[in-house]
């Protein structure tokens, strides 16, 4: 059962082939047996999961269930869960239990999904390799010496290792798409405002967006349908009906679909293996009826510097609340309030988080605000304009997700700039608030390669449909890491 997709499991549950309790117990047992090697979970909620599964079975028996009732999934540990630890991968929140559920968690529970536990992640979602977690690095199921990508690396690894059929992630600069690419999964970063941020621990509020990680576009469509929606508790949430993404998948046609290939995405820095996979995907889409069009996203090279001003600026402010006063980590025996702040934050936060807080504080400080923050906001506008113009010409944009395949654990941990460049192709999408998806497009030296499809605002349905059509015609997404099915 563990190797089935969410759509397949939903059918098995509907047909009575399996109960949610059996299914949930099966995944929990796999996690118990295998996750010590992978480290993809921070918290496993065994008893709660079984209770939810039992309730799901009862609901189905009573004819009250929805299509996803009883399907188990995992949540990134950035989503607050009532009464269950939400650590955000940080020592700072090692002891934190929220008295509320994130809207995403509540929506998915309301849809009948069962939570297996909370997945590992880069501390406060800052990282592209999952090495900054207080709970240790996550190993890539395709090669345990390599990173799974980040920051939603725990979610990606858990799904790739078949410890959960799907998991939630969050994407501030590529944190769903890049691990999806490195773990051979499909991951969707929705339009900003499509999925509520309420109860999602904030990293950079204007960029953060929750989304699904699963094996297929169809599964992502099912998950997004359960996650998304207007939330009056999030002022940036958009009041617009949620499409039935799963039902619309087959209706999307590749015939005549204009696929933009931004020339700036095919320059230096991309590994040959990745280039080959992206070109292969473009060719395949062409064979399926799509029409590749070369386009330009002229300000692409400015996206990483702009991002590394805006994101740390917002993060420096968002993380101010972790001060040791009300909850979370507090240092021992503080001498006075300044000592309490300094040592609680000094001991509670890891190096990457501190680095970004300092960068962000600097960028917002008097005398530098105009030169950094305001300038970055102007660049952000230019990047949005590039996309707006591009979507006057094309329906979707195709490019690499990450410039390289999964790199060895430790390789970039002392080189923040090299790490930041892991997100060179994903960041612009967050700056522009657009939806984008990463899907498996092959392998290079035995490691997965992902390609990215970028859509116009609220075009999630089209992205998922294109990916679904592509997946009907390819089998990259069906490959399984060695040993997973032993």
């Amino acid at each position, binding site marked *: 059962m563990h190797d089935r997709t969410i759509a397949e499991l939903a059918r098995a549950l509907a047909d009575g082939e399996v109960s949610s309790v059996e299914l949930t117990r099966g995944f929990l047992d796999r996690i118990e047996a295998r996750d010590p090697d992978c480290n993809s979970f921070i918290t496993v909620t065994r008893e709660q999961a079984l209770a939810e599964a039992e309730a799901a079975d009862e609901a189905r028996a009573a004819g009250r269930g929805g299509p996803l009732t009883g399907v188990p999934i995992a949540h990134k540990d950035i989503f607050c869960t009532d009464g269950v630890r939400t650590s955000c991968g940080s020592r700072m929140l090692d002891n934190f239990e929220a008295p*509320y559920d994130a809207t995403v968690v509540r929506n998915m529970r309301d849809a009948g999904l069962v939570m297996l536990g909370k997945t590992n992640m880069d501390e406060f979602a800052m990282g592209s390799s999952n090495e900054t977690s207080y709970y240790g690095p996550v190993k890539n199921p395709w090669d345990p010496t390599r990173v799974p990508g980040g920051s939603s690396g725990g979610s990606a690894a858990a799904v790739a290792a078949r410890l959960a059929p799907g998991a939630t992630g969050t994407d501030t600069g590529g944190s769903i798409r890049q691990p999806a690419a490195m773990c051979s999964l499909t991951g969707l970063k929705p339009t900003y405002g499509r999925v509520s941020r309420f109860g999602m621990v904030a990293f950079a509020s204007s960029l953060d967006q929750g989304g699904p990680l699963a094996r297929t576009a169809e599964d992502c469509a099912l998950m997004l349908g359960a996650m998304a929606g207007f939330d009056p508790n999030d002022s940036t949430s958009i009041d617009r009906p949620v499409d039935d993404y799963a039902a619309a998948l087959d209706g999307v046609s590749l015939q005549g679909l204009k696929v933009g290939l931004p020339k700036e995405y095919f320059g230096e820095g991309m590994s040959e293996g990745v280039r080959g996979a992206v070109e292969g995907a473009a060719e395949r889409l062409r064979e399926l009826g799509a029409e590749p069009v070369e386009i330009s996203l002229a300000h692409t090279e400015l996206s990483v510097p702009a991002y590394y001003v805006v994101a740390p600026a917002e993060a420096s402010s968002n993380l101010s609340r972790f001060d040791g006063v009300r909850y979370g980590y507090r240092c021992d025996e503080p001498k006075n309030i300044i000592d309490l702040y300094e040592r609680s934050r000094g001991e509670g936060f890891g190096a990457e988080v501190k680095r970004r807080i300092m960068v962000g504080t600097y960028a917002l400080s008097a005398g530098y605000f105009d030169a950094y923050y305001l300038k970055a906001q102007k660049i952000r506008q230019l990047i949005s304009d590039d996309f707006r113009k591009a979507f006057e010409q094309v329906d979707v944009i195709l490019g690499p997700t990450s410039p390289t395949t999964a790199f060895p654990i430790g390789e970039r941990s002392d080189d923040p700039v090299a790490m930041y460049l892991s997100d060179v192709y994903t960041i612009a999408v967050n700056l522009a608030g657009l939806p984008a998806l990463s899907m498996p497009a092959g392998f290079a030296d035995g490691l997965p390669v992902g390609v990215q499809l970028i859509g116009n605002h609220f075009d999630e349905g089209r992205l998922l449909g294109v990916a679904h059509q592509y997946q009907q015609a390819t089998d990259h997404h069906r490959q399984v890491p060695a040993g997973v099915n032993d």
Partner: protein
Amino acid sequence: MQWETVIGLEIHAQLATNSKIFSGASTQFGNEPNRQACPVDLGLPGVLPVLNEGAVAMAVRLGLGIGADIAGRSVFARKNYFYPDLPKGYQISQYEIPVVGTGQLEIALDDGTVKTIGVTRAHLEEDAGKSLHEDFHGMTGIDLNRAGTPLLEIVSEPDMRSPAEAVAYAKKIRTLVRYLGICDGNMQEGSLRVDANISIRPAGSDEYGTRAEIKNVNSFRFLEKALNFEFERQREILEEGGKVDQETRLYDANADETRSMRTKEEANDYRYFPDPDLLPLEVDQAFIERVRAELPELPDEKRDRFIREYGLPAYDANVLTASRELADYYEATVTAAGGAPKVAANWVMSELGGVLNAQGIDITESPVSAEALGGLIQRIQDQTISGKIAKQVFEAMVAGEGNADTVIEAKGLKQITDSGEIERMIDEVVDANPGQVEQYRAGKDKVLGWFVGQVMKASRGKANPEQVNQLLRQKLDS
């Protein structure tokens, strides 16, 4: 040298909404610590602010009350600093584009002149919590009940030229926010808090001197005293050739002095930036018109109407419109009295005012209702009692002895208007004082007043003084 004072005020008005500005928690005062702070107010991870439309409506009310421009689009920003009672590590406030723009306000000075004070802006923000030092040995307690309470910060132009003007302006703001029903104006409870910027310069100079900011003065009396102290302090420094430092100072009411809190060099860098959790605030014309339609009559309009409708002097009209409750009381009194607006004004301002002052209570707690006072005035008007006797009746009413008619009846204070009876008393007095009669007839007119007094005394104040006057003249001149 002659010095000129330059004062600008920043007034924080706590808005009278039922719930907080960015959460649904209650704003009630005086609850147990941390009992009305929800996860949003506590700044728990992941929670987000949602703007309370009621607070926006109140800000717009103020804006319309001072004839200000209302921004169609304003922006909430984060003001970042660490303090234990600031749960998020930042305060959500408005910085570059506030919801209320430039407006103005008239103040009446003691010499009767009216001066216009400019209002630079008014912006919405959230309040912080409170640090509690009592009952915590070597530690500090935090109460976040107040965190997230909506504040409207009303910033004036540096248009005030004396501490008295500053007080008049602050009082006018309080009057206005109370009229508008957007703030209870209670300075003891901190619902209205005043920060004052003060500098001095040689009279006639156009340049501003270096200013000091006095934080959180909690009464009008202390505001005046703090500004007077600060004027003297700055004057001494400058006259001795020194330089005033730009700094934040606190007023110590016990010592009647201001003390340095922090200098400009130590000032925080608040790292303001637009709050990415909140969209820009859009206020459309329809919303403004809805708020405008609900505006009550404002103090200046009421004052002008009192002058026009009741023929009151400007001074009386100003005093009587100082609060909506007082103005309402006055109007109810006039109605009950069936007219006599000037007499009613005098009674409300001096007799009733004296009682309220002595008892330290508000017009809303007056021991004499407007209807009862109107009833008393009616008895003066119809000459049942004289103005002098009325004071005696009023005292009895204050003491709870009933309404005017009851008291007049019980104490037999009805005015004597029977001319026969008055004439009898006059005869007695005139007959008993031949010397004074002689003086009068010798042309000493003043003696008439003495005779009036004697007759009034004989009647124990109950004789109608006009009649006494007239009949006395007849008698003496005959």
